[in-house]
């Protein structure tokens, strides 16, 4: 089986990267990169009670997911999904650990429900009404690659489109010192098995031991190295160039992903 898929839509949110059009311009050197705090919006699709409970990581995942599905012209309710993240809600985790270290050990039920790694996927399904399968992954620094493999395997085997959302957010201190993810950053891709008139590119993936691609812009390269989801940036750059090429992404310590990118238009 050919381990490949068509890219139908792209979503990006990160420091100084507000959406795919802006990110594409920056990655192809058409616009200078200026780092700024990641802009996260409360998801309007969620009922008010749920909206109040969402942390940064949930806003991030829903934001990128909606941008990618909108661009693909697909209804998110019809799409199975793959969510991949190195950590869940770091602030929520910190608050629970603080409470458990205190004498009373009282933790909030909402905080506990939000502590699951699949919180973003749960809120996504409530927001969009999607009852399709969702898979929620973690592979530490390899989380982008792991999400991409799972999403492409899904497309190849189930022959249906799938949403991939790879995202990470920061921990506050003292955990931040142990896991110094600086900011919220996420990439979403809608992938499909069949080419359509609106398809952006075909991607074909294989395992490799060769070195991964780096980014020339020093601040973007720092972003790539410090946030697991940003390890996907070289793929976005290749997609933004709209030319045939090969890019290599970080995956596990001893394995990387070689991706052949062929533009469709």
């Amino acid at each position, binding site marked *: 089986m050919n381990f490949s898929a068509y890219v139908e839509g792209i979503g990006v949110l990160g420091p100084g990267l507000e959406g795919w059009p802006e990110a594409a311009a920056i990655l192809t050197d058409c616009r200078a990169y200026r780092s700024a705090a990641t802009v996260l919006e409360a998801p309007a699709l969620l009922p008010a009670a749920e909206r109040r409970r969402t942390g940064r990581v949930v806003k991030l995942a829903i934001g990128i997911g909606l941008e990618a599905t909108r661009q693909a012209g697909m209804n998110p309710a019809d799409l199975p999904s793959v969510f991949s993240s190195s950590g869940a809600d770091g602030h929520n985790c910190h608050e629970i650990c603080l409470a458990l270290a205190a004498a009373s050990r009282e933790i909030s039920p909402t905080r506990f429900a939000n502590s699951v790694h699949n919180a973003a996927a749960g809120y996504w399904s409530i927001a969009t009404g999607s009852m399709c*399968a969702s898979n929620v992954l973690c592979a530490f620094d*390899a989380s982008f690659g792991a999400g991409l493999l799972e999403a492409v*395997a899904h497309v190849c085997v189930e022959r249906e489109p799938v949403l991939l959302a790879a995202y990470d957010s920061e921990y506050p201190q003292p955990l931040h010192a142990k896991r110094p993810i600086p900011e919220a950053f996420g990439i979403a891709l809608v992938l499909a098995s069949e080419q359509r008139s609106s398809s952006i590119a075909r991607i074909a993936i294989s395992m490799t031991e060769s070195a991964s691609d780096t980014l020339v812009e020093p601040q973007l390269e720092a972003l790539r190295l410090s946030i697991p989801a940003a390890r996907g940036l070289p793929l976005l750059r290749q997609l933004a160039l709209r030319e045939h090429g090969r890019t290599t992404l970080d995956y596990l310590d001893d394995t990387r992903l070689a991706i052949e990118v062929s533009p469709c238009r």
Partner: protein
Amino acid sequence: MKPLHLKTFTATSCIGRGLVQTLGSLSGQRSGLRPCEFETARLDTYVGEVAEVDSQAIPAPLRRYDCRNNRLAELALNEDGFLEAVNAVAGRWGARRIGVILGTSTAGILQTEQAYRRRDALSGALPAEFDYGATQNSFSVADYVRRRLMLEGPAVVISSACASSAKVFASARRFLESGLIDAAVVGGVDSLCLTTLYGFDSLQLTSKAPCRPFDVARDGISIGEAAAFALLEREPKSLDADDVLLLGVGESNDAYHMSAPHPEGLGARMAMRAALASANLDADAIDYINLHGTATPSNDRSESHAVTAVFGPMTPCSSTKGATGHTLGAAGALEAVICALALQNRLMPGGVQTSQVDPLLTAHYLKENRRYPLARVLSNSFGFGGTNCSLIFGRAE
């Protein structure tokens, strides 16, 4: 889907270390639930604790992975010839062609909970020896198992709460069918920690007594811990009659609530129907259902609705959580192994701790063990966030 072969499997929980002890407890209808004396927890509840975890050592080269969750994984990996079976398969396919796909909900968070109690008085910093990546991070268990088994293929953790290690079978199936790998080590490992003990207590979802699935007086879960593994390959040309196959998988989302199930079990129905469709089977082909059966009033009501809607009121079913406790992210894999044991030993395990089945629950709940030549069984796993997964296993015959 194309059936997959469970070449080897093993499970360790409070009802036993390895298959022989686990089967012995199921046959004798013994529960491993005891009053909670875990760590510094002061809670009026029962837990399914695995006694040998504290004394289990981590091999020296992997010392940085030392935490309760990885000790539990190590304990289980040493049973039932699992290490040797993986070695043999790696010899045949090559280490790069074997994936590691494991489920956990809390990984080594206990390490972080303890580290927070030892923060520096002045700076608030965590102790120098605390290793986030090798213990707290959800991936730590797959990273540990991959290194321990000296495998070099794709590795990932699935963490979708209490459905995590059922969904590993679905992912492994996609990886195998797409040709990305030739064999997969799948499983689930979840260990006791304060986050889940105090967290479920805050939601008033834990029982003060050993949990009583489907009982008229059921009032919550008992938390357990477990590690269960299976080695999956594509179906070989020849099989023994007692070999076990994964025949179907079904996944869905409730899209309803973060911590409560859909009242009519709509998502659960979709997952069970999808599993039947992927196995190309009708509902009457299923001989026994291992329920999610957590013993909270709403979970069991919702699941009973869903099971009856798909299978009618006659298909025998039970929850083994009265014996093992709810092992959360390990429950799917533990109950997959219990299903495999049920098939091989012609045993429908009756649900222990339940004395009077709730008359409002219409599913056909078994309290006593029943001997029956099972051909196909279904296992349900549902989790927070509304995530659902159903698996169908069968004897090769």
